[in-house]
């Protein structure tokens, strides 16, 4: 207990940094969680921040970004990131009714409620699953292969994604043995390549005269921004008054259900639970506002559960979120490592107790709610207007291009850049053509890194 105060200090400080930083990043439409949260969390790990600081930073960042990414989703009609895509039909309908600010406020109020529900529940589920930890460690390579197949089947590509998984895993294994010849072992370069794969594929496609024809446009994108209406006094709104009783109950119920499912993609859970709720509410307007609230609550809860359950129970990245944006919490060599051969794990799982996960998890959610929630509720309109008038898409792409170069060179020199280009182009094209999304690609990476050695041992001996 002698280290409780310094731990708390680190948790508070890093949580606040994550929350403020990612409240701002969330406003920029199209920024993917994996490209932004993963490298910065890796940096926090490598700089030697204590475990509680790393964990609170990550969760506060994820919660805050999730809150502010609702701003472009609701007000501009552009999905804030991939998780916001299932909310677009309701967001567009409410925008056309002239009340996008209501969509926004309902979305983020339910996100805050869902986050508070999800943290203790996912830690509870993790503790239930933890006794099977040893068994899971032994079978880890096979579990990763099975999880990759399952997630591939549930992606938009269905059986096409399952088949595409084979060449994808082979390409990654081949790249790994290729760089190993030069004594270079890469991790983040693969993550970054997968995360920006849609961008890399688009950039290369636009260079091809064949593809460019389909991408050319006659005019800039047209958009409109509705006027703002504020319905509460003071700075801090009360989420329980923004939603009505039915919406609060459904949000809590859906958050609880989705907290238990950690191997599926947040997008799939969001669609399914949204449909369940939609079928039960009769009035058209009420159905719209309730579905958008519940769906945003579900993306929040699933996201938290997908990171926390594998982390607290096993220390193995067994879900799309854990393998993607939360990857540095599991695997960040030389400080954190997951050894598939021995099942030996050194990461936050071994460094923090379940009680600490609960305490700092709630702290992170509270920090997100105190920083991002009132900010988004009060300044949503001004922020959306600033971003859409001042921040060009060219500038966003320029920033990411710089990020790819710096991270690639930093991790593996020229080899790092080659790996990002190869994985990015291959994954991005598979995504464009057959719907082999980034979640499946991340699981493919783990299947290659952890499952391949076991497969080779089985077949080649």
């Amino acid at each position: 207990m002698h280290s409780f105060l310094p731990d708390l200090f680190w948790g508070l400080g890093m949580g606040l940094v994550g929350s403020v930083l990612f409240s701002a990043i969330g406003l920029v439409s199209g920024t993917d969680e994996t490209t932004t949260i993963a490298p910065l969390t890796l940096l926090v790990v490598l700089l030697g921040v204590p475990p509680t600081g790393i964990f609170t930073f990550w969760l506060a960042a994820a919660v805050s970004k999730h809150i502010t990414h609702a701003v472009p989703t609701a007000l501009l009609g552009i999905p804030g990131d991939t998780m916001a895509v299932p909310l677009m039909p309701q967001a567009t309908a409410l925008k056309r009714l002239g009340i996008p600010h209501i969509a926004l406020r309902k979305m983020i109020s339910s996100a805050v409620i869902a986050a508070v529900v999800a943290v203790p529940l996912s830690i509870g589920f993790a503790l239930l699953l933890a006794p099977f930890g040893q068994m899971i460690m032994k079978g880890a390579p096979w579990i990763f292969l099975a999880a990759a197949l399952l997630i591939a089947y549930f992606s938009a590509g269905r059986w096409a994604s399952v088949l595409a998984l084979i060449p994808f895993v082979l390409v990654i294994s081949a790249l790994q043995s290729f760089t190993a010849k030069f004594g270079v072992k890469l991790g983040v370069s693969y993550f970054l390549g997968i995360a920006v794969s849609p961008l890399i594929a688009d950039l290369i496609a636009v260079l091809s005269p064949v593809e460019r024809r389909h991408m050319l446009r006659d005019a800039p994108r047209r958009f409109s921004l509705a006027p703002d209406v504020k319905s509460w006094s003071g700075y801090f709104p009360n989420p329980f008054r923004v939603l009505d009783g039915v919406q609060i109950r459904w949000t809590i119920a859906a958050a609880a259900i989705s907290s238990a499912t950690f191997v599926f993609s947040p997008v799939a859970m969001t669609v399914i639970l949204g449909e369940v709720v939609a079928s039960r509410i009769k009035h058209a307007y009420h159905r719209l506002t309730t579905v958008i609230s519940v769906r945003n609550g579900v993306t929040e809860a699933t996201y938290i559960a997908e990171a926390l359950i594998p982390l607290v129970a096993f220390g193995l990245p067994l879900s799309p979120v854990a393998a993607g944006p939360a990857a540095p919490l599991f695997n960040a060599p030389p400080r954190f490592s997951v050894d598939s051969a021995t099942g030996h794990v050194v990461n936050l799982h071994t460094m923090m107790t379940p009680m600490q996960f609960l305490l700092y998890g709630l702290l992170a959610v509270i920090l997100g709610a105190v920083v991002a929630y009132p900010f988004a509720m009060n300044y949503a309109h001004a922020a959306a207007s600033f971003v859409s008038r001042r921040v060009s898409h060219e500038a966003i792409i320029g920033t990411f291009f710089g990020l790819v170069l710096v991270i690639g060179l930093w991790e593996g020199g020229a080899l790092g850049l080659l790996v990002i280009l190869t994985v990015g182009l291959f994954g991005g094209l598979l995504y464009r053509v057959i719907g082999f999304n980034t979640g499946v690609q991340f699981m493919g990476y783990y299947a290659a890194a952890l499952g391949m050695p076991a497969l080779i041992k089985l077949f080649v001996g």
Partner: protein
Amino acid sequence: MVKGEAVAGQDQAIRDVQAARPGTDPIYAELWGDVVDLRHLAGAMVIGAVISLAIYILAGFVFASFVAKPSVAHAYAMLAGLVGCVVGGTVCAWRFKPKRQMVEEDDIAWRQEAIALLEAESGPLGLSAHLTPAVEREMRALGLLDVANRAARGEVV
């Protein structure tokens, strides 16, 4: 696609581009979810690359000279490189304006159309047996109930 077709396609694409946009007019294209001008995009990528790499490489030398542990110096250089990305992005944002067009929408027409669409999909939007008091209050405060009811009675809003 056979080779001849591909080449013909390319030629056509080049002619399309040249015919439609001679000189220095913007070449709009949609990629990664938004519209850019391809010339500006090329400029932004050069600026982003030069600034972030310059800062990363420079920081590498500077930190290596006074931080004892090489791995820590390496990590600090990356942090500086990330700051460099943001600096590069800021320069690009200042140099290249967004290709988005703000339109003043006709609120009433949009609302009526949206209401009609919704009602066709999922039943009446105005007063109905399914409208609970809480929802009714909310819709009234937004001015939505009035519009929906008048639309239901066939009045022009």
